[in-house]
């Protein structure tokens, strides 16, 4: 119930944080919202010798829109995006996802970037950022780089971040047309990680066809996954009953769930199918007022 003893550092700039990460290397851990790291330290599953608390770094706070992207700073908490109604028009998936994460007090602390770097396969942001085709901006001693989300998750609790790289922001492309999104999640209990989750993000072109479509799968594999086949079947199509039927049937094909206490793999696959159909139907109704037929 009590973390191991550690050395505590509280840098106030990104450079200082990166310097400390380089200095302490593997012995250190970055502390952001602490809502995954501290629970693990309390159970002594994690026992870093040094904690680098980045909460005092002003540059990591807040979000801004520029160059066709929304840049979400590493210290933006889940709750901030949940309540940012000014983002709802262009980035509806953000608040729709945020409200499903853990519970309100945890959302007041936990950060979007922390959730991504933690790389829990059940991370709700993981599925959502896949759907949004986001990029993670990281900074190390060598400077800055952008990692596309599809290259970011490597394995359960493992990312392509280098040991001394700090995630400083996540970038979400600004949509170029009418947009709608749904986040679908089934939990065993409110606040629990997902049994299965699906993020669906749709941008229409001027003819009402899907210009950009992203479908992210949560809790159904070693990492958050992309429903590639389903996306291929969706992009360029109008959202009709036929499209919905095809796409929802294809979504589980890219999932890789396991049998566990939350349910069987077959069950989770079927949840994804049901979620996809429901999400697309709701999105069609939102964007077109109804679901059409071909």
């Amino acid at each position: 119930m009590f973390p191991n003893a550690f050395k505590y550092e509280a840098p106030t700039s990104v450079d200082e944080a990166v310097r400390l990460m380089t200095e302490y290397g593997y012995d250190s851990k970055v502390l952001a919202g602490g809502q995954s790291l501290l629970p693990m330290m309390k159970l002594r599953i994690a026992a870093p010798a040094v904690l680098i608390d980045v909460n005092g770094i002003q540059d990591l706070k807040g979000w801004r829109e520029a160059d066709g992207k929304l840049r979400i700073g590493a210290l933006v908490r889940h709750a901030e995006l949940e309540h940012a109604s000014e983002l709802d028009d262009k980035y509806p998936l953000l608040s729709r996802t945020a409200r499903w994460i853990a519970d309100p007090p945890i959302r007041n602390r936990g950060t979007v970037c922390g959730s991504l770097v933690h790389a829990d396969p059940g991370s709700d942001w993981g599925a959502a950022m896949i759907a949004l085709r986001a990029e993670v901006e990281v900074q190390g001693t060598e400077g800055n780089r952008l990692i596309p989300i599809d290259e970011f998750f490597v394995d359960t609790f493992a990312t392509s971040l280098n040991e001394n790289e700090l995630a400083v922001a996540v970038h979400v492309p600004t949509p170029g047309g009418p947009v709608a999104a749904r986040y679908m999640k089934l939990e065993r209990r409110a606040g629990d990680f997902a049994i299965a989750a699906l993020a669906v993000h749709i941008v229409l072109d001027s003819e009402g066809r899907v210009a950009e479509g992203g479908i992210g799968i949560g809790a159904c594999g070693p990492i958050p996954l992309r429903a590639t086949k389903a996306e291929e079947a969706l992009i360029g199509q109008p959202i009709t009953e036929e499209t919905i039927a095809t796409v929802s049937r294809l979504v589980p094909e890219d999932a890789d769930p396991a049998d566990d206490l939350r349910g069987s793999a077959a069950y989770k696959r079927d949840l994804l199918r049901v979620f996809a159909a429901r999400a697309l139907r709701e999105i069609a109704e939102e964007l077109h007022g109804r679901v059409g037929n071909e």
Partner: protein
Amino acid sequence: MALRQTELRPMGKPIGRKEDPRLIRGKGHYVDDVMLPNMLYLCIVRSPYAHARIRRIDTSAALAAPGVKLVLTGEDLAEMNLAWMPTLAGDQQMVMATGKVLFQYQEVAAVVAETRAQAEDAAQLIEVDYEPLPVVADPFQALAPDAPILREDKEKKSNHIFHWEAGDREETEALFREAPVVVKQNVRFPRVHPAPLEPCGCVSDWDAARNKLTLYVTSQAPHVHRTVLAMVSGLPEHQIHVISPDVGGGFGNKVPVYSGYVVATVASLKLGVPVKWIETRTENIASSHFARDYHMTAEIAAREDGTVLALRVKTVADHGAFDAAADPSKFPAGLFSIVTGSYDFKAAFVEVDGVYTNKAPGGVAYRCSFRVTEAAYLIERVMDILAQRLKMDPAELRLKNFIRKEQFPYHSPTGWVYDSGDYEKTLKLALERIGYEELRKEQAEKRARGELMGIGISTFTEVVGAGPAHQFDIVGIKMFDSAQIRFHPTGKVIARLGVRHQGQGHETTFAQIIAEELGLSADDVLIEEGDTDTAPYGLGTYASRSTPTAGGAAALCARRIREKARKIAAHLLEVGEDDVVWDGVAFSAKGLPGRAVSMKDVAFAAYTNVPEGMEPGLEATYYYNPPNLTFPNGAYIAVVDIDKGTGTVKVRRFLAVDDCGNVINPMIVEGQVHGGLTEGFAIAFMQDIPYDADGNCLAPNLMDYLVPTSVDTPRWETDRTVTPSPHHPIGAKGVGESPNVGSPAAFVNAVVDALSPLGVEHIDMPIFPWKVWNILREHGITE
């Protein structure tokens, strides 16, 4: 504020709670809030294996760690003859393991250090060399002839603990032979845990100068804890002072004596300073005692018209590594034989076999009166199966078979004498309030459209208030309870009781009982419980026994005081005792209007102006041995809708009509019902402590042992009928547990009802969405 605490005649009124002002200010005083000078902290090292021989324990690194004052192992305790302690069920339990461990998370060693964190640091440094042994995690496997013997300490070389039966085997067999209809069902009541929000813990404080041990402990039964501690430790009982301060919920979890209490006490005795042990939530769920884990098979013999004839039940009870049930001594399966429920069976025969497995020990009475929940769930479940087979409406089947009002006192085929009830009235009220007929119509329409809606009924009978002392004892101590009331000269009262509340509101309800009897307001009466040095001896609060036992004691004790008060009043009114009339708030002189004295006047006189020859003072103690148990009952109805796509069950409505006899405080009764229903809901839909084949506990914390939040919990509707208990001094029956006992069957019956067109007759709890989805998939139903 509508708290009404100063009103006279408070009985039956929704008086605001007297315990709340401190609790809403954060000024409650729970065990972990006890901070004493020089206090040290205890951390327990637990076994990662479910069954293993301990080859060697190396404590040297821990002993050398910063802040460490003491390290103890089972061997150290064995030297003091303290390695084992008795369980309340008459078995022995290891305080810390010697020789081998029998369940995962079993206590193996302990560290005492200056801070909690240091204790934990050092605990990690203890090295234990284990030799894993074959694990028996399944109770049926435990009974196999070639199963490894788990309890080598026992004379009997078998994993079988006890066989217990009730009822009449021959008569039951005979009825089954003739019966035209027989239904049979295997029903599992999962392993669950009370998980009160405050975990268990203690501060043990040995004062060598005063030769006194003070134990602050999370206890539902402080007197029993003191007696057990005296028996285990050899310390004289009067030199042990057990204080159970504010308790953050118990639900049966805080009845037993846990290893941590004993080890903290040994440590305090050795070190001469206070030692605190607070278990973590993981320790709470994985090692402190669980509940249920009953594997039951029930058969009903009936006529074609639905009249029930006989009931036959066979049960395998998984007790884990030690039989640590908190049942009364003569009842190894508790009051499970109440399983004939609210129905007039001609005969019944019930058997239970207790079994050891490599799992945490138990089982406690989780918000229920010793296995009554298992019994109520079973009978209410199989009655529905019978209705389904006979194509009868489940309400109609129940109405047909109820014990009728005029049959009370009713002698049940397993030997109980039910005190009172009007089951038909209670069910009919429930059916009317929920709009049963309209719901059935709606269901028919929905079914025609392929939608899945279900209605579930449970009309349970409980048996609570243990108990008559000739039948019930715990470790030999008869199950009476007690009250002591003292009037002070200004007319204010302090009353102490032998029970210990954990949120039930005794400080208010017992004040109401006493105030009602003595013409006072609840404000005039201060209730104290939980301190063994001041309170009269009692057996504690669990099994809904406080109102039936201590509540009775409080009323009778107050009446004892009133008798003396009447004599003093006669003296003050200058009339003969026979001419004194008590009207509920004052004594007056018969035929002399205007001449009256209040209890306050009498109390003052008791210290200042007693009649010649009378002993001064105004106080009394009453040890109440109830003549019988009480039998609360109710009719619960659940309405559910099933999401075909995900298998999720939504509880659309839930109505609980309870009959708990006379009500002391309707607001508190309603609160108890809300809470119990929520726990029943959790059991029906979320809770289970599964173990894998290696005996690993798979839900040892609140991440996986699911406790419903405000979002998950349905909205509750409540109502009641009042059939007073004829033998209880104030006609009350106890209610704290009815909703937890009665509701699981209503939920499950509703889900099965929704799926009954598919031929589904039973689903074992907890009804996770995937279970429903599996059934739907088998029948080709999908969204």
